[in-house]
């Protein structure tokens, strides 16, 4: 079997004295798209931040195509192609849309094809092209999200990690975004997607992990039918 793209091995991490993740392990195989979901404050974002090097694991290892990266600097990790699109969706609010996108290609690997990629992003999100001279802070929520994803694509990811791209979006925008991310995934970019919206996740990913209280609580195959009630119970069940 082919080596997985990403291999997270028993990672524990936290902030200050508060531990957030407890010995988490998961892998991203070559041809699979991974979804993470679960209640807030239970470690999904923390996991992404650990993979992209913003946080040092307390213990455990992270491997990218067999190479250990958990001690590397964020920019070294970006240079290897892991691009995280952070939650909260405003990149550089005072910069224009075009400037934000150009900075997305800041890492050395992505610089040569900047113009091509820019055209590709404008193709994918025509709205960004219309607004390329506007400051990012003047964009609507959906456009900001597109900008964040677009900037991520400018970095030529060999794996793209999206953190709650639908946060705060109206259903119609979600559909648009779904299509765009589908296109990206279809073009062969491996994906790790953090989402609250299960429908969104199911449509885009092959494998789902539910992270609850800092551990992997459920591991589901998106193509198989599974017990919705179990999930709803975890979200809505009475104590």
């Amino acid at each position, binding site marked *: 079997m082919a080596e997985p793209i990403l291999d997270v091995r028993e990672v524990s991490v936290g902030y200050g004295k508060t531990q957030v993740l407890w010995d988490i392990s998961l892998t991203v195989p070559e041809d699979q798209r991974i979804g993470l979901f679960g209640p807030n404050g239970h470690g999904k974002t923390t996991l992404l931040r650990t993979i*992209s*090097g*913003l946080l040092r694991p307390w213990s455990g290892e992270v491997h990218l195509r067999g190479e250990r990266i958990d001690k590397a600097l*964020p*920019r070294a990790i*970006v*240079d290897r192609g892991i*691009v*995280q*699109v*952070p939650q909260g969706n*405003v*990149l*550089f*609010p*005072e*910069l224009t849309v075009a*400037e934000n996108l*150009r*900075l*997305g290609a*800041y*890492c*050395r690997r992505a610089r040569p094809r900047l113009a091509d990629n820019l055209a590709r992003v404008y193709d994918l999100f025509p709205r960004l092209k219309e607004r390329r001279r506007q400051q990012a802070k003047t964009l609507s929520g959906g456009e900001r999200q597109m900008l964040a994803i677009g*900037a991520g694509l400018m*970095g030529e990811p060999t794996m793209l990690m999206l953190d709650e791209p639908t946060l705060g979006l109206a259903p119609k925008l979600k559909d648009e975004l779904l299509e765009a991310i589908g296109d990206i995934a279809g073009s062969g970019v491996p994906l790790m997607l953090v989402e609250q919206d299960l429908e969104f996740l199911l449509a885009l990913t092959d494998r789902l992990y539910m992270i609850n209280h800092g551990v992997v609580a459920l591991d589901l195959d998106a193509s198989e039918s599974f017990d919705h009630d179990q999930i709803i119970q975890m979200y809505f069940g009475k104590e």
Partner: protein
Amino acid sequence: MDIGTAQSVLLSGIVLGSLYALMATGLSLIWTTLGIFNFAHGVFMTIGAFIAWQIGADLGWGMGPAAGIAVAMAALIGLGCLSEFILVRPFLRRPDVVLVAVITTLSAAIFLENSALLVWGGRYKQLPPLIEGKVGMLSTAISTHEVLIIAVAPLTLFALWAFLKFARTGSAIRAVAQNRESALLMGMNVPVLYSLAFGLSAALAGFAGILLGSIRFITPGLGNEPLVKALIVAIFGGLGSLGGTIGAAYVIGLMEAISMFFIGLYWTPAVLFGVMISVLLVRPTGLFGKR
């Protein structure tokens, strides 16, 4: 007040404003990128003037003003980067970095001022004006050097703006200021960008020092009073907006010139402080500042 006096007050206000703009822009640049305030900024100005004097002036090594300016600029960029490395970087992750940086940069100011005293002594030195002579302007005459200041300051600031706006590194500096984490995720080398911002800011201060060094005598304390003025400008304009800072610099320069004419040298600081307090009472983040 006749037309001639009015014009000379106006011109001296613009000269002051130009110098303050150079100074305060540097302060503001560091504030926006690193979120700290550099009290060594005034002494950077002093050092710039001294180095230019040492290299360029006839009483120094006499290599001419161009060499003096070039070496001074290079030295100041280096000094700025070094300062960032020693005074700021070790403390950036601490929650009280703002306070610590005030203390470290203040200490550095004392350190450098006394170093200047050791190296160059307390005797007054002066740079020759970059261009000799006087120019008749409107109905008064001012020195060509002052005309040069009025012209060069906006040009320099324009160059800075163009760099920040169009160069890859320039927009990265602005980006880091707005969102450090996203900058990291895009692969920017944040520490290097911080150093660079500091170096640029120091070079701006040094350049202001060179321009000032032929109007006033160069002493180890040369930069102290301009630092306080730049400080007032920064508060007045609201830290963090370059445009606001530059605008405020000219406003304060003019205000100072007018107040010197009408109220005299003695009470001018009080007037400026009074204006600053009134602005802060109405808008706690400065006149052009953002929340």
